[in-house]
């Protein structure tokens, strides 16, 4: 799949934002007043910024409200609802903390559930796609959730829990890659089922339908070199998990913590880039790719 910067920015940032909101909703860190205000602004910048970034990806952002209509069947629509609900509930919860120094605990819990639910719905948009076997696996929501929780905990300054969650995210990431690499082969879809023509291995895509590119080849049939991907995987893993853990294990310093956050953010973005770039859409089979 084409790794569109807007979608990568959206999923990475909003994942962090909603992750942070999740922890805030649960009362971590237990902040009030200006400090709470700072945390909430950060969380909202990330979450809303991410959502806004995602609209850049739309052909008709001015019609974005229509996306709320089909919640009964569409994960994208559900994401719209959960994110809106999470943002509203957490706003009320946050207002309590900031202006009244009061934690409306049940509201916080609800907000936490909605925040993490938003991440889940986002992940389900990808997970549901049978057409992209690498995404169509249980580990995809786990991956998104583990990133949100780890990143959120890091932002929430939970220096004790964060290394564990970062480690977990790293392991999930490794597993996701591992299973993802064979997902297309295991999916049962190949050029033979795609065309109905003969046994696999005996059929070969000859000429593409047009000599130039088209929307599908640009959007869905992005191909990344294997060597390149390997390198990026190492970088992503180090940045998102290994380096932040090491930084957190050092004696605590705000600069180190900030570095850990930045490293994780960069790693998560890199991972997300790979999430798209490595995803093989089955339509690529028709074009002789993969």
């Amino acid at each position, binding site marked *: 799949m084409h790794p569109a910067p807007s979608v990568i920015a959206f999923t990475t940032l909003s994942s962090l934002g909603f992750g942070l909101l999740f922890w805030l909703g649960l009362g971590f860190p237990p902040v009030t007043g200006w400090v709470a205000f700072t945390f909430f602004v950060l969380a909202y910048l990330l979450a809303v910024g991410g959502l806004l970034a995602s609209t850049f990806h739309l052909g008709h952002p001015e019609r974005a409200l229509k996306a709320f209509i089909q919640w009964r069947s569409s994960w994208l629509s559900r994401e719209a609802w959960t994110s809106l609900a999470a943002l509203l509930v957490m706003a009320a919860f946050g207002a309590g903390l900031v202006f009244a120094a009061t934690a409306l605990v049940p509201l916080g819990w609800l907000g936490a559930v909605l925040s993490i639910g938003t991440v889940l719905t986002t992940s389900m948009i990808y997970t549901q796609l049978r057409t992209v076997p690498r995404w169509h696996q249980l580990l995809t929501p786990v991956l998104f959730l583990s990133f949100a929780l780890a990143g959120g905990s890091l932002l929430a300054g939970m220096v004790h829990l964060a290394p564990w969650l970062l480690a977990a995210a790293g392991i999930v990431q490794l597993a996701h890659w591992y299973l993802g690499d064979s997902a297309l082969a295991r999916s049962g879809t190949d050029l033979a089922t795609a065309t109905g023509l003969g046994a696999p291995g005996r059929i*070969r895509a*000859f*000429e593409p*339908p*047009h*000599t*130039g590119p088209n929307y599908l080849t640009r959007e869905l049939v992005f191909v990344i070199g294997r060597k390149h991907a390997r390198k990026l995987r190492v970088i992503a893993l180090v940045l998102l998990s290994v380096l932040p853990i090491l930084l957190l294990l050092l004696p605590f310093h705000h600069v180190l913590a900030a570095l850990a956050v930045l490293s994780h953010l960069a790693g998560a973005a890199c991972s997300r880039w790979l999430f798209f770039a490595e995803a093989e859409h089955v339509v690529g089979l028709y074009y002789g790719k993969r």
Partner: protein
Amino acid sequence: MPPKQPQLDTSPRVSDEIRRTTCYMCACRCGINVHLKSGKVAYIEGNRDHPVNKGVLCAKGSAGIMQVNAPSRLRAPLKRVGPRGSGAFEEISWDEALEIATGWLKPLRESAPEKLAFFTGRDQSQSFTSFWAQEFGTPNYAAHGGFCSVNMATAGIYTMGGAFWEFGQPDWDHTKLFLLFGVAEDHDSNPIKMGIGKIKARGARVIGVNPVRTGYNAVADEWVGITPGTDGLFILSLIHVLMKAGKIDLDYLARYTNAPVLLNSDRASPDYGLFLRDEAGKPLVIDRVTGQPTAFDTPGVRPSLSATWERYGIAHRPVFHAMAERYLAPEYAPEAVAERCGIPAGRIRAIAAEIARVAFDEAIELDRPWTDFRGERHDKMVGRPVSFHAMRGISAHSNGFQTCRALHVLQILLGAVETPGGFRFKPPYPKPAHAHPKPHCGTQPGHPLNGPHLGFVQGPEDLALKDDGSPARIDKAFTWENPMSAHGLMHMVISNAHAGDPYRIDSLFLYMANMSWNSSMNTSGTMKMLTDTDENGDYVIPRIIYSDAYASEMVAYADLVLPDTTYLERHDCISLLDRPICEADAAADAIRWPVIEPDRDVRGFQSVLCDLGARLGLKGFTKEDGSAKFADYADYIVHHQRRPGIGPLAGWRSTGTGRGDAPEDQIQRYIDNGGFWLRHVPEEAAYFKPWNAGYQDWAVETGFYDAPQPYLFQLYVEPLRRFQRAAEGHGERQPPDHLRAQIREKLDPLPLWYEDGTASDAYPVRALTQRPMAMYHSWGSQNAWLRQLHGRNPLYVPTRLMREHALADGDWVRVSSAHGEITVPVMEMAALNPNTVWTWNAIGKRKGAWALDEGAPEATEGFLLNHLIHELLPEKGDGQRWSNSDPVTGQAAWFDLRVRLEKVAAPVESQPAHPPITSPVGKGPRTLAWKVGK
């Protein structure tokens, strides 16, 4: 609860008006319905009533709308202001343009009309353009047929009085086995596809003989991936097997062919190899009843295929003896040819067996009584449901004439021509070679030529030679080099004019032919010839006038450009005098008419010729008082008469048959009828046309000829023998010595096979082109929709050669021939003859042409194979550079090409890269969302 759905208007208005005319996105000439909204073209679809396409339309036809709005369209007449080839022009008025042309041409006509060479390309008005050239008085006229498929046309007409091309068709409704030789697309684009669809739906089978398995050959049930240039050998081997097994139609051969005609068989006789004739000149056969030599058309005659006759001590034997002697010889046994053809001997036998089985075990009978030319009544029509079609794959080789002949002989041996299930002629064919005109080249300053330029020679006396024996025509057509060049040799015009051989010309007038690019061999050399100057700094070819509708590569090389309209904006006439749209069951002709008005200063070229003709004072184009005879081409179409009662259009003439006076509203009648006119062949005249009295009478009635002219199929072509005799030293007109051997060997009256071109260890791989179905030569690339399908052309390389050269898709190779080299990208193809590479024809473009961006893939990755082909063959040690053409017809031997591949590092762009030409019309827009309605 059913979900709520939007309300849809499922009956939107399709258009304000439909105008029915004829497509010209290629030469197939399908009927189209042009839907207009507010006077603009909104949608084009096929005309269901039209005889050619019956409603279907190909990709090109459907993309016509993008041709009309193409940014490459010329806007006004152009006068060259920069050096030739630069593309620097100034737009001028029509008055100025026509004055310039008149100023150049008038003095030529009055002093030496042959100094004008007028050649037309993809033209469909040859009967008109040739008439114009004849009136001008120059012998130098032809159209593109010479480099196209003259082998096919000539072999067909000399052998059976009609050819494949678009002049005949398989009996799609009855055939059970269809063999297709060397066809990628053909002129009959839609009809062939419809036919293949039809026979597949019936479960009949298709055999495709072609080194490349795409398109028709991809859907063929059997693919014979033959070695290029060896079809003749393969066909003669089929003939060998079938004759040996007696799987031939003896009755048909005896009645309808010259198989029983008596040949002088005495090698010592000066008439050796000529027919025995009676006083009236009629060939004689031995009647099995009387045992006496009898004129072939005598009522009741039962010709013998084996009886011989001696007269004045000279042995005569039937043609069929000579055939048996030649084709039963072991040199044609499958085992002897298999390796050269690249087809296992067993497969050759199996194919022969399948042909025999279908032809004879599955013969069909139609209950249609008919009467033959000898007056004999037949109560049935017996058919051999095996049909054949072939085109340039066998035609565009230097052994193409004989290969095409071989194929026709095979068809005839099976009795599968003009019989149900076999091959059928489309009116005005059949028409034997001797009923066609002969070539004329008699010039006289200020006067018309002494007759039509092109025709069918019967012997040396008909050649277009001057008194001193030198060629009368600039293209050297109808000379000893290629005596039967019935379509001229357009591919030799520029190089001969440049060399001043046989003489110098002054003005080269070209129409609708991209001669500085894809239709010339040696493209880079041709561009140089067009720009070469003499010692005075004058161009060696002094003047070039060109008519095109678009900013093609050739435009840049003209001194004066006459911009044409598009096909939707002009009158055209697809005439029975020319290449009509007939079907086997009907005579038909058609028109084009301006369904929209041009939005710029362009004029239909034929109308311009009428105007120019009048300005030059040509008799056919001026009234007594010297004023213009025809207001425009539409006027000409209605009022010109070729013979009394016969004109460009046959429809709605006074007799209702095709003859008579044309009504004043003839064009409107065509428009009202959907753009065409049609006259059905009566049922009892539908088959056996050359010998069918019913058909012959109908043909006379319709105006094809003035008296019935039944004839025999010529298995043995006597005119060829007449040239051989001359080469053997007989007769007045003698060939130059260096050509004697070639004529003796290759102008054999019975088909034979010889190697096409020069086999060479240095260049071991065969290289071909194919037409893409969705592109027409060079002119599809300006079309926004079509160029997305074929924006570049890789060289397709068989798996074996990919491995041998360690190539992967997208790698580049240097391809060299004896003449030149190109560097191009490759793509692997498995379904391909293991020793053949190929590419799509004419996708490669010159930078700056066609209003395309200079970085267009057509120019940076696309390429022409033409750079590797030369109009002359390399010197062979005899001091001669032989023409790269068929020695019989002069057909350009595009497919003789042999090459060598070498892997190279990817260059910046495909090579050779020529500097860009300046676009006379600017560049196209960045986006297109073409909707004319609301």
